């Protein structure tokens, strides 16, 4: 066995070793090692173009690394094909994007239920589960509203519910509060971290927001594709 392979007993839920990502001659990631523990909440910060979003996409299997290895619960996942990686993203990961990226035509409960429906769950079960998550995130009574009828914060909470509904091991959040005011942003992050803690999911948040990053238990600063500092609260 590769001595670098983390053992999944009580070790990190997600690990990256020597991750490299190039765009032409430009290095977005220049050899990053990172470990995410279960129930961790990690903020990845850095200036524009530093490679933080690339790191998130590579760890989540959205982009394939040019070099390096990724382990999920001790199993190597970076060599998997697109089909397997999609399945992994659908079952083991959850995603929250800036502005929610909800399907405008669907109601809040349908948006939350959508991943389960697409995975083959029945209508009633998927919708019921969606309603429960909305209720836990303080959106009871707004299940039938469309994204256009919700405030920015409410729409992000719907996106959080959608990311949590299949109880993922890791939640990736890319600028989840980027389009929200400070107070709403803080509330949204509290909702995300609270719900993630409840389900035991680790959370990785990419953000520009210094205040948000400081409020997170762990922060990783990226510069020029390399980890500049690791801070633990």
């Amino acid at each position, binding site marked *: 066995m590769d001595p670098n392979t983390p053992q999944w007993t009580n070790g990190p839920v997600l690990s990256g070793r020597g991750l490299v990502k190039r765009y032409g001659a430009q290095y977005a990631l220049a050899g990053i090692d990172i470990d995410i523990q279960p129930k961790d909440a990690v903020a990845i910060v850095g200036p524009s173009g530093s490679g933080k*979003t690339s790191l998130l*996409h590579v760890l*989540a299997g*959205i982009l394939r690394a040019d070099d390096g290895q990724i382990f999920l619960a001790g199993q190597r996942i970076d060599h998997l094909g697109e*089909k397997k*990686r*999609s*399945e*992994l*993203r*659908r*079952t083991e*990961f*959850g*995603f929250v*994007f*800036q502005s929610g*990226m*909800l*399907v*405008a*035509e*669907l109601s809040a409960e*349908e948006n939350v239920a*959508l*991943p389960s*429906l*697409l995975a083959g769950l029945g*209508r009633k079960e998927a919708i019921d589960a969606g309603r429960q998550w909305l209720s836990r995130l303080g959106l009871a009574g707004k299940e039938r509203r469309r994204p*256009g009828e919700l405030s920015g914060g409410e729409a992000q909470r719907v996106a959080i519910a959608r*990311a949590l509904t299949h109880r993922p091991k890791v939640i990736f959040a*890319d600028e989840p509060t980027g389009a929200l005011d400070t107070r709403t942003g803080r509330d949204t992050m509290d909702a995300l971290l609270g719900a993630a803690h409840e389900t035991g999911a680790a959370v990785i948040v990419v953000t520009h927001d210094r205040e948000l990053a400081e409020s997170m238990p762990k922060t990783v600063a990226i510069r020029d594709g390399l980890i500049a500092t690791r801070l633990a609260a």
Partner: protein
Amino acid sequence: MNSLQIALRVLKVDRRTRTSAILTAVGVAVATGLVLLLATLPFATQHREQRALWQGDHFYSRDDGPAKLMFAESKDYFDGKQIIRVDVALAPGATTAGVQLPAGVPQLPGPGETVVSPALGRLLQGNSAAQLGDRFGKPVGALGDDALRFPEQLVALTGHTPDAMPESASPVAAFPSGKASADPLLMLLSWVGIIVLLVPSLVLVASSARLTAARRERRLAALRLAGATPGQVTNMVAAETTLSAGIGALLGLLLSPALRGLASFVPWAGGTWQAADFALPVGLTVFVVVAIPVLVVLAGVLGLRRVLKNPLFATGGHTKKPLRWWRLLALPAAGLFFLYAVTTASDSGGITMVMAGLFLLVGSAAIVGPWVTSAVGGTFVRIWRRPSSLLAGRRLRDDPKSAYRASAGIVLAVFAGSMALTLLPTFESMAGGGRSFQDSVLYVDTDTQHAGKIVDQANGSLQKYGQSEKAVAVGEVYLVQGEGRERSGQRALVMTCADAVKLTRFGLPPESCTGGPAVFSDSALDLASYKIAADWEGPAVAPKSGTRVETVHYPDEDLSRTLVIDPAAVPAGVTPERVTVVAPTTDANREIVRTALAGPAAGEEIGSRDQYLFNQQTELGDLRRVTVIGLIAAGILAGCSAAVATAGSVMDRRRTFGALMAAGTPVRVLSRALRMEAALPALVATIGAGIVGVLVGVGLYSMVDPRGIVVSPWLLAPVVLGVGVALLGASVCTPALKRVQAEPLAEE
């Protein structure tokens, strides 16, 4: 920076705007090309008829001076193909030099000579004289293209002495000339074609423009917020649209020769076309090339009204009003009007009302269609089991107008196509019937004076050709009751019972021929109350005594008013004025018998079931062909529109779909949802339009015949077309999604 410079800059830097502009230009090019082609059709038929004017006997004048020619025009047939036959003779005292020849006619044939078209020349070479050549005489020249209606037309200009000219010949001063008119049916069809094909073309333009609508509206809203006046914004859009629509119109102009070339291969009225037929006057060409882009620019500017009204709409969003149920009333209201127009048309002659009803029905589709689309969407939203049904249902429910708009072109095409395809097989079933003679019989109508000569010469020729068939003369008399205005009666063919058994469709049993002279009738007849006359108004004489009446059940109702009378039963003093020379044929010797008749009856039309059906079948074939071509063209255009609209709808939601795919949703699952979303409106609209088209076809047919329509598999064609359009529209889902997947997640 002026409006045009801004438009050019946007085109240069934005790939999607460029794609949209290219697709818009393609749509405008197709629309322009089609309109330019369809607009030429009336002119094309006019050009054709102008060249063939000399072949007809409708355009000569007897007042142009002293007669120089004897002229007769008739139609001959060979192996199911029509031959235009022009028989001429120099009038006594006239010389060849005094006759001006039509364009393309190299010489005036002398007696026993013929000048034929190249296609007929080839037929003459490939068949024996008995089959064809003996009908015309010795070929001495070939007609040029300028003398032919269409390149493969079969024409013979045959020379005679004046006394050998047919009875129907007229003395004329010159070959027919003048100004030909366009084919009214093709003129009507070209207008229908312009509407049926222009609408899907414009829908394609609209779908292409929509590809960037959201982005453009945001850009324009930003410009408005930055202080641009409504006029400046309008100018920018006009410049942007003029650029692509103008290039498209020019491309359409360049495309039109190719379309004309293709169209010249499509047969109409028996033949194809010369490429030069499709010439459009310069003024009309300029009008079309300018009008279409102007319409597109106008539509683009009108689509701006939301930005002009409120520059903030793009960021603030807007709610769509739900469609009201009363929209549904438009179809039954138009249907009732159409029904009323159809049922009263025969009394009032109100074809205008029927046409108005038809237009109302077509118009009502634009009102009812979006409501039905919304209702179908609502049903899917209620009963969905899979996310694909939910997504499709919601999309249809939320924006039924635009979902329907993408299908509007195909709705019109399918409506017109279904209507035509309902009527055509039914009209086809009506074709046939005709004269009292059997289908295999050839006949020539003439007078008593010529009949004997035709019979003798034809039988001589038949003997010479080694045929056992004989031509017989069948006279026509009338069995009448009363006198003067009170006279009533029935027509009777004078022929022996044995000939009637062999040659007619009356179904006389051979055993009825024994027992002496008889009159054969479909119903009981009191012969004592009838007299026999040579013509309807002439003197009548009582039938010969001892004539029996034989009642025979005719197999065809159409024959019921015709009797058969034995020549032996016709009293002395009654000599039929009209005589038909009749000859039986077999499939093997039909053309030989026709040749035998054509010699002595030169210039008289030789009738047959083939001839009777020729025009009907040609017209029905033409209609069927243009219907199918029109439907396919409209289907392809509508399919392209649906594909562009689908691509646009994926691009509109690229961030959402990108996020879903990033979160692990397989492309095939999203693709299935989008395929359903794209295919559903087209399918629903197509089937709906097909049903209404069939119903309207039934209504129109009821004006002509109260019997029911003929159900044909062709009625399924619109459904097949709808499925095709839907599949074409849906086919872009997977590539569009893969493109979104390949793009960086955050790009907008």
